[in-house]
């Protein structure tokens, strides 16, 4: 039963993500599933509703390549660098196609995933006080506490069709271990109908690596586990490789111009078969700074 979970990333994306799906690639700065994002682009998935607290490079790529018709998010930028230009171009000038947006705050997105993971239809929070966001988002409403009469914000639970995360380790039964900044990795998988987990390493038994209260996702809640070493680059995987800050900076120039962006994507993503190919391709241009060398040969 458990061993059927393992597949290549190609197969997992093919089988589990369909045109028109709502898809959440999560990872809060740490463990961003970049390799899975590339594969979604290679397979030309279309009309996706992309969900993510912090759309950054991975969504800039998908949006710029025309894969998304809608974006649900709370902060869209290139952390420490500036704007993400494909995201801006889509919102400001509808290129390459219009992108509908649904915008929340971080606290709210996290609460919405929690509600989704908890089988609740909505999340309650103290939020958006005085903010203009509720004026532009009909999914932000307000209710009264039945005990105190206080006014609280509420929003619908997030239950993506597919959750995609990257993690450090999985074992042969598909149990997944996440360490360090864990973000909303657990919540998004539990909230989603299907899930893909890419991992740095497959180990024999997760119990040899996990402490009693470690963040572990049992294999039976995960749809597919794919072994993709380096798959979070240019984000990082604690204990494996560091954040590739130079790559984030370089992205600014790559994505600023439509043609430069398209040419770069054609060459390094569409023109490669998988993430290892991508790594070799960009490494040849000196663009990968933090991945162990064996991924780039």
């Amino acid at each position, binding site marked *: 039963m458990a061993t059927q979970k393992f597949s290549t990333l190609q197969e997992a994306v093919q089988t589990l993500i369909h045109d028109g799906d709502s898809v959440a690639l999560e990872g*809060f*700065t*740490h463990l961003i599933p970049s390799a899975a994002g590339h594969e979604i682009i290679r397979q030309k998935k279309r009309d996706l509703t992309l969900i993510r*607290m*912090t759309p950054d490079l991975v969504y800039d790529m998908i949006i710029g390549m025309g894969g998304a018709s809608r974006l649900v*998010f*709370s*902060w*869209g*930028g290139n*952390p*420490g660098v500036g*704007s993400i230009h494909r*995201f*801006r171009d889509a*919102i*400001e000038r509808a290129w390459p196609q219009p992108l509908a947006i649904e*915008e*929340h*705050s*971080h*606290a*709210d997105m*996290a*609460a919405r*995933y*929690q509600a989704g993971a908890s089988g609740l239809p909505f999340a309650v*929070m*103290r*939020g*958006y*006080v*005085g*903010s*203009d*966001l509720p004026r*532009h988002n009909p999914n932000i409403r307000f209710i009264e506490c039945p005990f105190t009469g*206080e*006014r609280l914000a509420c929003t619908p639970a997030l239950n993506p069709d597919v959750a995609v995360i990257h993690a450090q380790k999985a074992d042969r039964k598909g149990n997944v271990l996440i360490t*360090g*900044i*864990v*973000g*909303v990795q*657990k*919540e998004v998988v539990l909230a989603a109908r299907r899930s893909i987990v890419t991992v740095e390493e497959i180990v024999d038994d997760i119990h040899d690596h996990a402490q009693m209260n470690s*963040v572990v996702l049992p294999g039976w809640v995960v749809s597919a586990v794919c072994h993709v070493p380096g798959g979070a680059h240019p984000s*990082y995987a*604690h204990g494996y490789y*560091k*954040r590739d*800050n*130079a790559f*984030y*900076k370089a992205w600014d120039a790559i994505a600023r111009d439509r043609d430069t962006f398209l040419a770069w994507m054609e060459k390094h993503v569409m023109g490669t078969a998988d993430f290892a190919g991508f790594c070799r391709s960009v490494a040849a241009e000196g663009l990968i*700074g933090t991945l162990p060398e064996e991924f780039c040969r």
Partner: protein
Amino acid sequence: MSYTPTELMTINAARKLSDGQVCFVGIGLPSAAANLARLTHAPEVVLIYESGTIGARPDVLPLSIGDGELAEFADAVVSVPEIFRYWLQGGRVDVGFLGAAQIDRFANINTTVIGPYGSPKTRLPGAGGAPEIASSAREVWITLRQTRRSFVDRLDFITSAGFLDGGDARKRSGARGAGPTAVITDLGVLTPDPITRELVLTAIHPGIEVEQVKAATGWDLAVSPALTVTVAPTEAELACLRDLHARTLRAHGGEAGGD
């Protein structure tokens, strides 16, 4: 000793933090200032980042809000839902320390959009954690460079509440906490008038002229009759900040963090 406007701003922001305070830290300038405080006069300040790190003690400045450095030396690393629920919304934060793209005369913050929301002139990154930091922390400090483009009379979009329309508008809104009690810029420090809640220039950095500050403000800036001049950065403060930036630069392979 000479210093840059950014150093001036960072050091003045750092000085505000007291030892033992619990500070929810935004990335960039707030993070640089908070860590400078920790490395100088406030070793027991508790730094919380929205990535889930509580009591972070980064040796170098993080470039992103979730750098491994933040987790490595933290007292606890919890999930993002937990950090917002139990720690921020739970009322445990003394100071929310924010950056901003724009603020207005009542210290409201815009990080969402310039122009109409539906057809933006410039699309900014969005809210992130700020709306709830601004309404949940006991007080809020904002730090940003002062220009007519960033200090505007009226925002196109209020992302995070300051004093809204001024007066008791914030109180009536249901926001908890005192709101923005200080805006620290490269030119001086602005604080809200106790009644109208309009930002008033209450301190000016050494060598800066009042007219210069007024010229960098998009509304007719009121100046406190008790205007003070901030103390120039000390050698120790500058040395510590420059060390921090140099370490950061080395660690990030040429990328300076926190700025």
